[in-house]
């Protein structure tokens, strides 16, 4: 029993130790930029990498997500007492409140997060970050801050696109299967639309964007060793981001709904 207590204590201390380092890493980024124009250029490049680079996968996931949800809701609501627009209402609300922000960001944690972590981790193990430091550049600010700002701008945009395309997928699936017409779908979606739900989705998107970019950058930045450790950091970045997303998903739902 003592041994288990000891292990739990060690794990707790390790968690707080890591969390402290994470907070210090974020704090360390915010110093006066050496040259603002360079940071702006890097942010635009990262916006392109995150936004345009992830657009295809977001489009595919969003369309299929909406289509499959429509079919499954229809399957579960076979009753003459339930009007067909209810299906549109449920799918659009689910897309906005949960599916589009959370699923999209879980996928982005895998795609964007692992890329960020391995990029920064490789720079760490090949002494490129040391080179930045010796030059007098705030390496964490130079490497991570543009990624975080770019993520905070582009990931909410991707989530909005995902919400829109989920509904488009729902409409397409409804029409293709003959379950409901686009008019019925839109009638339901409009009837249940609350602007607050969109606001909630955006709050989620900003939170997840911050988690994905900071957690991934942190794991890349603190990589030590060689190629094997870069891979391990990349995996950790994805796993920790995903867990943090799900945890904050619950927390936000509890606090804001």
């Amino acid at each position, binding site marked *: 029993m003592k041994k288990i207590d000891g292990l739990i204590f060690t794990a707790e201390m390790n968690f707080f130790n890591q969390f402290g380092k994470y907070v210090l890493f974020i704090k360390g980024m915010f*110093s006066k930029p*050496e*040259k603002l124009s*360079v940071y702006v250029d890097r942010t635009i490049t990262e916006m392109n990498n995150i936004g345009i680079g992830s657009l295809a996968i977001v489009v595919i996931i969003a369309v299929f997500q909406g289509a499959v949800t429509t079919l499954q809701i229809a399957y579960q609501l076979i009753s003459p007492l339930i009007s067909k627009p209810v299906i549109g209402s449920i799918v659009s609300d689910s897309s906005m409140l949960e599916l589009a922000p959370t699923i999209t960001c879980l996928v982005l944690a895998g795609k964007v997060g692992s890329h960020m972590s391995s990029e920064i981790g490789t*720079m760490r193990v*090949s*002494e*490129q970050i*040391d*080179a930045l*430091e*010796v*030059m*007098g*550049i*705030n390496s964490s600010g130079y490497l991570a801050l543009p990624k975080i700002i770019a993520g905070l701008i582009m990931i909410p945009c991707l989530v909005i696109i995902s919400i829109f395309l989920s509904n488009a997928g729902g409409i397409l699936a409804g029409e293709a299967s003959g379950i409901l017409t686009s008019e019925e779908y839109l009638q339901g979606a409009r009837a249940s639309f609350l602007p607050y739900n969109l606001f909630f989705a955006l709050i989620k998107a900003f939170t997840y964007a911050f988690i994905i970019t900071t957690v991934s950058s942190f794991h890349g930045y603190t990589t030590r060793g060689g190629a094997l450790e870069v891979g391990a950091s990349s995996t950790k970045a994805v796993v920790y981001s995903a867990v943090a997303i799900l945890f904050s998903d619950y927390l936000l739902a509890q606090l804001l709904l």
Partner: protein
Amino acid sequence: MIELKDIHKSFGDVEILKGINAKFDTGKVNLVIGSSGHGKSVMMKCMVGLETPTSGSVIYDKRDFTHLEYQQVREVRKEIGMLFQGTALFDSLTVEQNVEFTLKMFTNMTPAERRDRVNFCLEQVDMPGINQKFPSEISGGMKKRVGIARAIALDIKYLFCDEPNSGLDPVTSRLIDELLKSITEEFKITTIINTHDMKTVFDIGDDVVFIYEGNNEWSGKVKDIKTSGNEILTRFIEASQFH
């Protein structure tokens, strides 16, 4: 001039540097020699601020680098150039962008002025015309030379080189040595080279610091190295077959 005053560095319970005192003069090629694992690289990292000494001071021309505020450290670092063992060129940038990097970050030069300076630095290291190549497209020796060009892009006062000849053939190795010597003399900078290559020591060295088990075992002029009377140093030289 750079001065080390009683530098100690420990990692956990293991003490790597055990009170190093040394002086590195301006306009000279100062060599730090010693076997692998005796603390040369840790000492260099302490000097450039990549590691914080457990105690002691690193003085850059009367500025106590180890006790400066972060912003002041960054100012001193603008006067430092470093050639890393693995070159540490930014692999997502071209040769030109690598050399241009510090100019872009710290100066208000126009793009044309920057290009001129990049070309000047690349000519200094005898590497003209490779501006648009990526580090992955050039050889190890070329990378070292580009690394030197990047290090001297700003008007630096101090140049640090960690094992500049590692992994190079003898001919390229000699070229790099000559390059470091000529740059040191031409720009009147304080050059510090970590090496265990005795050929480099005898070819280009002015002053030598011999590190053994984390201590400054011997320091002096290169010409005195063979007559130092220090047994450990003599054994080290004999092992390198340059006696």
